[in-house]
């Protein structure tokens, strides 16, 4: 006799099959079984009612009829037949009234062993409607995009104009100092906006990176030079060995900049940036002195909004650093206390092959 892969036993508290079927039929998530040729063998109410169909209009039909994109359902059926488990596979379904629903489908096939080999019994599909979430995400992206535009335009005028005027020698004394303050403030607002918009645009999604061959030391040198001028701080840069590799230049610059800014803003001198050869990785150590970070704060230091206060701001910078490091397959940790020194050590695999 054919034997199923898994034969779940009926718990003693399920007194009848009807109770179980009622439970399944009234579930909020769409559930269905599909045969190897795509025929819908069984579905619960949530599955067909979400699309505006009755059981008769749905069960017995081919699942392809309800998918808006032919290539998507073809790919799903191909993968499932090959024994793959689909996890939150994104698809679009067409409702009876012609409208489209965005869904995420988790599915796998129940196979049974037969003397002739494995037999495709049916799929086990769980369908979650994410239309509203997608709509909100699109609205958020539009909002962030417009906000970015509206904030950056006046900032461009302030920062370009102030930097340009600072080139003129006739500007002296308190007027020059005032203009320098305006320029520094504009740079700070600008970085906060970059972090905030970055955070909002990617919420829940990994940072996208485009690695290319670059010199890690060159990026650090540029950031250190900029920060020394902007924050009037002495920062020592040490480069040890070969620190060439493949990273996303813009993201790497953002991460290094956030780390150095964090050190200068929250720590005390001496400030040190060390970038060193560590075999398949490059290590970046950014250190500062001053009071140690409290142990309870260390655990959540990379979490967004973890230390919101009027003096610390949103603390998105370190969260974004961790995301960028992770997107490159690396890691980051912080130690604070010994010798009144706080050190952020990040590990950056040199190439795609070295990323774990």
């Amino acid at each position, binding site marked *: 006799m054919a034997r199923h892969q898994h034969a779940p036993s009926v718990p003693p508290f399920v007194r009848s099959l009807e109770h179980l079927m009622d439970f399944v039929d009234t579930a909020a998530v769409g559930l269905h079984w599909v045969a190897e040729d795509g025929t819908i063998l069984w579905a619960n109410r949530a599955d067909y009612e979400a699309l505006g169909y009755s059981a008769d209009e749905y069960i017995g039909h081919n699942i392809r009829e309800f998918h808006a994109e032919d290539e998507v359902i073809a790919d799903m059926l191909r993968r499932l037949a090959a024994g793959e488990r689909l996890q939150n596979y994104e698809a679009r379904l067409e409702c009876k009234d012609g409208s489209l629903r965005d869904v995420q489908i988790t599915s796998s096939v129940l196979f049974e062993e037969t003397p002739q080999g494995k037999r495709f019994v049916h799929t086990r599909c769980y369908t979650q409607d994410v239309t509203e979430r997608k709509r909100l995400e699109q609205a958020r992206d539009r909002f962030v*995009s*417009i906000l*970015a*535009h509206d*904030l*950056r*335009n*006046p*900032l*461009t*005028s*302030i*920062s*370009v*104009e102030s*930097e*340009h005027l600072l080139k003129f020698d006739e500007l002296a004394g308190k007027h020059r100092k005032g203009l320098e303050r305006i320029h520094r403030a*504009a740079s700070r607002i*600008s970085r906060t906006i*970059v972090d905030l*918009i970055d955070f909002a645009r990617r919420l829940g999604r990994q940072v996208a990176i485009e690695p290319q061959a670059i010199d890690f030391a060159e990026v650090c040198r540029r950031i250190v030079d900029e920060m020394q001028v902007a924050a009037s701080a002495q920062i020592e840069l040490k480069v040890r060995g070969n620190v060439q590799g493949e990273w996303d230049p813009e993201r790497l610059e953002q991460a290094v900049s956030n780390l150095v800014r964090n050190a200068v803003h929250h720590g005390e001198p001496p400030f040190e940036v060390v970038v060193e050869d560590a075999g398949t990785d490059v290590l970046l150590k950014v250190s500062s002195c001053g009071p140690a970070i409290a142990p309870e704060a260390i655990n959540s230091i990379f979490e967004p909004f973890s230390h919101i206060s009027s003096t610390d701001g949103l603390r998105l910078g370190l969260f974004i650093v961790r995301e960028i490091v992770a997107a490159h397959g690396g890691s980051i940790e912080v130690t604070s206390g010994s010798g009144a020194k706080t050190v952020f050590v990040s590990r950056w695999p040199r190439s795609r092959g070295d990323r774990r």
Partner: protein
Amino acid sequence: MILIVDDDADIRETLCEVLQDEGYSVATARNGREALDALRQAEHVCLVLLDLMMPVMSGREFLQRQSAEPKLASIPVVVMSAVWDDDGGTIAAFLRKPIPLPALLSCAEQYCVEKQRAGST
């Protein structure tokens, strides 16, 4: 000549002043349509500094139309915007707003070798 295309009057004036002080001749346009008109009439434009989000004609539409006109297609365009998804049009460079002044000047230097002392149009 450098053509600055931005619907924000302050940005147009700021960039105009900065680039003129650096010795470049400059023209401005408030949207993509004005920019296309300016390019068709101008004799020698070495660089277009282009905003994306503009009324009447956006920067993206400008890029499509520019690339479709053989006489204009080779003029380098530097996009100045908050975001650039690189989903259409070939551009010379992207400057994220707020634009760092050194990056702006290095673009101008790269594409406009001969500086001309002239007023804006």
